[in-house]
């Protein structure tokens, strides 16, 4: 069973990322559950989606110490959902920083050196500037697919399976940008 937790900020495209992973899991013939977030929390808030696949999946949600991979779209969100990671789990994190409202209003401060602090706990961290890679691919909104690329390179699933699913999942006019973004993420290392 593979449990992947995707954490990000509403509007970053975590839903598409989870749908791509869900479709990859089906292509591989697994049972799968993808849990999404709709409604109020989507509006720029902290959002988390879960993708679980394997022989049989019961609960659609991922608990503490339960994720094989945490795919974080933003550093603070990686920090927040660290508790979901299994002791030997992997954290893939986009090095973008986005201030939440309590930081913007000055009530709280954005923690410094998050990635170093997480690494100090012995966590296997892959940090990537997905925003730059997305821009390089031609659209800064392709951060999600860059991160899927990084994730794909860290699985033993055939790259072609991901590419096929991306082609089928994203609208045609964004296909080329997304495949390029995926490639940039996949070759990041």
């Amino acid at each position, binding site marked *: 069973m593979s449990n992947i937790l995707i954490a990000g900020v509403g509007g970053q495209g975590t839903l598409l990322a989870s749908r791509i992973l869900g479709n990859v899991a089906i292509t591989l013939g697994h049972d799968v559950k993808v849990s999404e977030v*709709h409604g109020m929390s989507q*509006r*720029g*808030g902290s959002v988390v989606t879960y993708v679980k696949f394997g022989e049989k999946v019961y609960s659609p949600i991922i608990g503490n110490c339960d994720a094989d991979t945490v795919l974080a779209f933003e550093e603070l969100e990686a920090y927040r959902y660290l508790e979901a990671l299994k002791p030997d789990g992997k954290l893939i994190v986009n090095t973008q920083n986005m201030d939440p409202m309590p930081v913007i209003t000055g009530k709280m401060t954005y923690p410094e050196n998050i990635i170093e602090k997480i690494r100090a706990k012995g*966590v296997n961290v892959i940090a990537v500037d997905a925003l730059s890679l997305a821009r390089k691919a031609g659209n800064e909104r392709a951060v999600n697919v860059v991160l899927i690329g990084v994730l794909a390179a860290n699985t033993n699933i055939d790259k072609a399976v991901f590419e096929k699913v991306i082609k089928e999942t994203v609208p045609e006019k964004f296909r080329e940008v997304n495949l390029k973004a995926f490639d940039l993420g996949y070759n990041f290392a």
Partner: protein
Amino acid sequence: MKKLMLGNEAVARGAYEAGVKVVASYPGTPSTEISEFAAKYPEIYAEWAPNEKVALEVSTGASVAGARSMSCMKHVGLNVAADPLFTASYTGVSGGLVICVADDPGMHSSQNEQDSRHYAAASKIPMLEPSDSSECRDYTKLAYELSEKYDTPVLLRLTTRISHSQSLVELFERDERELIPYKKDAMKYVMMPGMAKRRHIVVEERCAALTDYADESGINKIEYGDKKIGIITAGDCYQYAKEACPDASFLKLGMVYPLPQKLIKEFAAKVDRLVVIEELDPIIENHVKALGINCDGKNILTLLGEYSADLVKERVFGKKITDIKTADEAVPPRPPVLCPGCPHRGMHYVLKKIGLRVTGDIGCYTLGALAPLESIDTCLCMGGSVSMAHGMEKATGKSDKTVAIIGDSTFMHSGITGLIDIVYNKGTSTVIILDNSITGMTGHQDNPTTGKTLKGEATKQVDLELLCKACGIDRVTVCDPFDVDKFEKVVREEVAQSEPSVIIAQRPCALLKSVKFEGKMYVNPDKCKKCRMCMKIGCPAISFKDGVVIDETLCNGCGLCQNICKFGALSKEVE
């Protein structure tokens, strides 16, 4: 063929396969997508009604006319539809009638955590509860069979995790059905005391028959495993419990009203320890206890929030997870915020600046209650802002300090009745209708003011200005909330009047495809006095480090901050 589907999409698929002809709903998270997916089938007529009561009356009418029909709503929407619900239980149906109600344990996107299962018992309408997308499809189809066989509406209860989780669903063909021939039958469909007394007898007989069905049909299933522990559960809780302890014995309930009796007694007798696992209220647990059977339930679990496999492991099996890695410091929360370019931001800024008492309502604009905007004083229910402002005035006397704010869709839902109340009962309140050309919070649904139907067809548009005038409001002003100076002037003027007034704050939702801002804002460091005025609008794209910083991935160039800055330090850089 198997497809990955949201629970909501699977319900729509079930309705399609069951031959449903009419769907009438009002959007509400987490129920919204059922109707949206249903609308995609050409064979199904689907509409957004102005509110849930109207929706259920439409689907009841379609049922009486002989078609299979459906209404979908969130838990609080069922409160609005409760009036037709209770009496439709008496009349029964002709074509099958299914009411989907989606509860939100954990309140991901709701104002309370009410448990809709109470409505099933109170209205004596059977209720099914699926535990994954495949069951969403199956139970929807079953609901139509039960509806027609037992002559009753059927409730289909969903929860956020069922509605918004995708799992695999097998697809079947549609069962195209002829309309059931219409028969005038006043004894069945005209509910006056004489008729209703006879129908009540029918309802009670039906409940007894459905209890037998709950015991014998197989909708409620025993899965024997380790008999040291037996778990009675339903819906998403079945999945949590199954993950926490796959080897236990289970009585999985697919029908949560009426509940089985013989089956529970049989199951309880065979297991050493009985535990009921259900989110929110102890409905199954109380039933078990009323049968004279002891069990664990809320004594070890909780009435609050959403359950999880972790919670079941800890509370039922005493297995606490250790070795959790956590952050070294307090991680700032990230509450939802109004989007960059949101038309509501300018209004909230003005209302806070004037220092008005603001009765709020249900929609994106409720986020204006949070820092730094903090303009809203109350949020109760759909339409509540208008009537509450009137109530405040009647309690305190004429006050120029209160305004009601309400979205266009919410106003059509149930704000209009409050406005009529103000006019009729000589109130002088000011109501601000936020006309952003769409139903925003639930993800862009059309409504009577947008000029488009759920099926995507052009239609007549309700003219809010004329409507308010027709209600008896003589002072109706249309104003752009981004023009903060003018908006402030209008609000000050209207609240000072000794008659009721309406301000229509008109500007489309920034997420609409038709809305295009150009370029992005930039800060001129020479002009910026670091006064932080621009921080008061709570735009997620503006932060303050050593000076004002614009996050260019978030800024859409809406220009509101430019209207706030007194020093011309913010301006547009057109690409």
